[in-house]
């Protein structure tokens, strides 16, 4: 009998944890600004994963062409006509542990490189975005701020 009660309590606790995790995972949704202030990135949930695309550029026009900037540094020549505004630079993130999203990549349009990436939410308006090659020890962390601050 004690075993049954214990098991039931465990199941209730597990269910409560699952229910509590769903809103945490979606805490990443919103518009974020990298520390250099050059762009704003909107994070969306597509399927069950999280993606971030550029929705605003401080300098939207290419100085050389005076046309909207495109992904001219993409290693795939066929993709170099893709508009930078709307470009999805955060891809395939999954909520793994508390306030952490992993398994995704970040793309740097300034050099055309894609890095593995871990996103950690320091508080509801601040993200640590760590891009790295190989293991996360060797990488760089940028701090992103939420554009519309939550109270």
């Amino acid at each position: 009998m004690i075993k049954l009660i214990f098991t039931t309590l465990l199941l209730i606790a597990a269910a409560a944890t699952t229910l509590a995790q769903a809103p945490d995972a979606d805490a990443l949704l919103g518009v974020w600004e990298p520390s250099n202030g050059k762009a704003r990135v909107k994070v969306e949930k597509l399927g069950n994963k999280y993606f971030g695309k550029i929705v605003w550029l401080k300098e939207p026009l290419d100085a050389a062409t005076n046309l909207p900037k495109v992904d001219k540094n993409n290693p795939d020549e066929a993709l170099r006509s893709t508009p930078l505004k709307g470009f999805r630079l955060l891809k395939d993130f999954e909520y793994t542990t508390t306030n952490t999203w992993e398994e995704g990549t970040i793309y740097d349009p300034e050099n055309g490189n894609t890095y593995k990436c871990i996103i950690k939410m320091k508080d509801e308006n601040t993200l640590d975005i760590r891009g790295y090659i190989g293991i996360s020890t060797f990488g760089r962390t940028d701090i992103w701020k939420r554009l519309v601050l939550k109270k």
Partner: protein
Amino acid sequence: MACVILAATFLQGGCKKTEEKEWELAPVAIIWEGPLMEGPNTAQVAIDELLQPWCTQHQCTVADITHITPKSITITTTDSLLLTSCTSLALQAVSDDSKMLRIGIANPLVWHKGRATLTTTPDADLLPIANGNQFFWIMDANFAADTEATARCTMELLLTIGYKK
């Protein structure tokens, strides 16, 4: 004995020849719910069990499919918002078990009598995305201005599917 079974399996697999067929998917309704912002807006459509009906029709299994690549992507609409204010479209696909894949793009977007064609990414293999229970079409549309309206179009996809027969 195990070697004999392995050899037989290998021989059986080896005897199958790969065929390619064109596969026209049922038209997909794409809706961007308003309000829409100036710049990129995303619509997503969930697709369940894409491959199984095709396999049943062609008397093969999902394991027999070798590749699925896009051949043509056509967008049709009578929506004035899309016709006048949308400057580019990009189609991707993603599933929970696979990375997002670019399928096609139209930049600039050119309409001809309510029809537009996306340039396909011919090497994009949809098989790892489509062989699960569910995947998502993700369509990005760039709009020239903010609007409260909702935009709608229909997407027609022609795929090339390779399978062992």
